């Protein structure tokens, strides 16, 4: 199963580090990353593979949201299915 992690907020140091640390700790593999910074506004989208995930999805979601609060970013994780459904025919 794959999911999309979206990180949005004001740019600062350590964003990728903080997010990927949690993913690595829970055996989640990052397959793709794209990011942009526009006018100090940071947007990153990660495609992750959760096949070997060592934690419950909701626990992971809360952990990411907590980190998001700590570093002042909005972090969401959503199943890839939603984006594929909405944007492909």
């Amino acid at each position: 199963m794959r999911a999309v992690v979206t990180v949005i907020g004001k740019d600062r140091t350590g964003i990728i580090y903080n997010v990927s640390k949690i993913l690595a700790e829970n055996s989640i593999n990052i397959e793709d990353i794209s990011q942009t910074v526009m006018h100090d506004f940071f947007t990153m989208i990660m495609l992750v593979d959760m096949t070997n995930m060592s934690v419950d999805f909701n626990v992971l979601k809360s952990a990411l949201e907590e980190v998001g609060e700590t570093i002042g970013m909005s972090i969401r994780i959503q199943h890839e299915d939603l984006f594929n459904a909405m944007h492909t025919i």
Partner: protein
Amino acid sequence: MAMFKDVLETVRMIEKERLDIRTITMGISLLDCIDSSGAKSREKIYEKITRLAENLVKEGERIENELGIPIVNKRISVTPIALIAGSSDDLNYVEYAKILDAAAATVGINFIGGFSALVPKGFTKGDRILIDSIPEALATTNCVCSSVNLGSSKAGINMDAVKRLGEVIKETAYLTRDADSIGCAKFVAFANAVEDNPFMAGAFHGVGEAESVLNVGVSGPGVVKRALEKAQDASFGEMAEIIKKTAFKITRAGHLVGTTVAERLNVPFGILDLSLAPTPEVGDSVARILEEMGLEHCGTHGTTAALAMLNDAVKKGGIMASTSVGGFSGAFIPVSEDEGMIEAVECGALTFDKLEAMTSVCSVGIDMVAIPGDTPASTISGILADEAAIGVINNKTTGVRIIPVYGKDVGDTAEFGGLLGRAPIMPVNKNDCSVFVNRGGQIPAPIHSFKN
């Protein structure tokens, strides 16, 4: 992986434009709960609903979390109770409403629909008892919603039902007078009622439906408005194209949620109703979409045309996105639940008569309109007859959810709270129509019903 901008678009729709799944509604057949003993029948009803819907809320919340899209309501619709209770000797069906209420509370849902009767061509014994029980049923339960289908393009309009329901609405208003007659907000009088509608208050599980199905209602007026904002100079053709594309995306999200929930609950996926359903929140209004097209206020000249185009484009986008589109699928115009409509009424731009015209081109009828508490029952019946006529002649569903707010008059506002919102009392035509309403009988089926 969906493209970068697609991901961001979806996230923005959910976070900023209030895209949500308005409801997942589980339809449950109660036909096997019929019993000559009312008490036994109600035992079976409670057992069946709580068994089949045990995990509805839990699975709904799980999928909400995984997909990151809010599912605002989890609900249940059941077979019209008049059909179930009719074989018992009970002379009053309020106890059936109470057992539905209890089952709803047990499984943790906020509305259960199906305290209903289908009488487009006449009444059975059960239909009559159910209709007589509606006021007390709505006054003594929290989650139960009621509806009556009083006309169809195939059968015409049952004017005896029209007359009686005017009185029922008045009685319901009186019995719930302490809460601005809120009981009436849980009752819809339909013409051409659909059997798979997931939206309340008019949801019921039709007899042609399967044992149990999962229907989904999607919304997203904010998303459509935002899409139009970005196209200020668009022609009508271009606007229609934008609405269609937006409706397509919203529908796909709903289809995914519906099929996923259905699979996890091990019931068939029924239909997806793509209706733009507003809420009282700012940014979630259908009226504001119409205004975005260039109307100073919803209700001014041009509003009916704007709504017609919106409704049609929504349907076209939805049809392409899912093979299971059903229910109403169009635009809802409930006054009290739409911040833009409320303002339009308050500033005098939107009148009752204009609303009636609008209902001839959108997917519902006179919805959540508050009128003076001293409006005679016959006038309400006249309103029901007018709306039914629009539906019957135009081969579409129309519903009336109208609240004669006890003790209040034009200039006052009724406060319902939550999703039901607040409604400025609208004036109605004061000329008498009681002689017309009292004639009784059936308005015959229209000529275009004879297609065989």
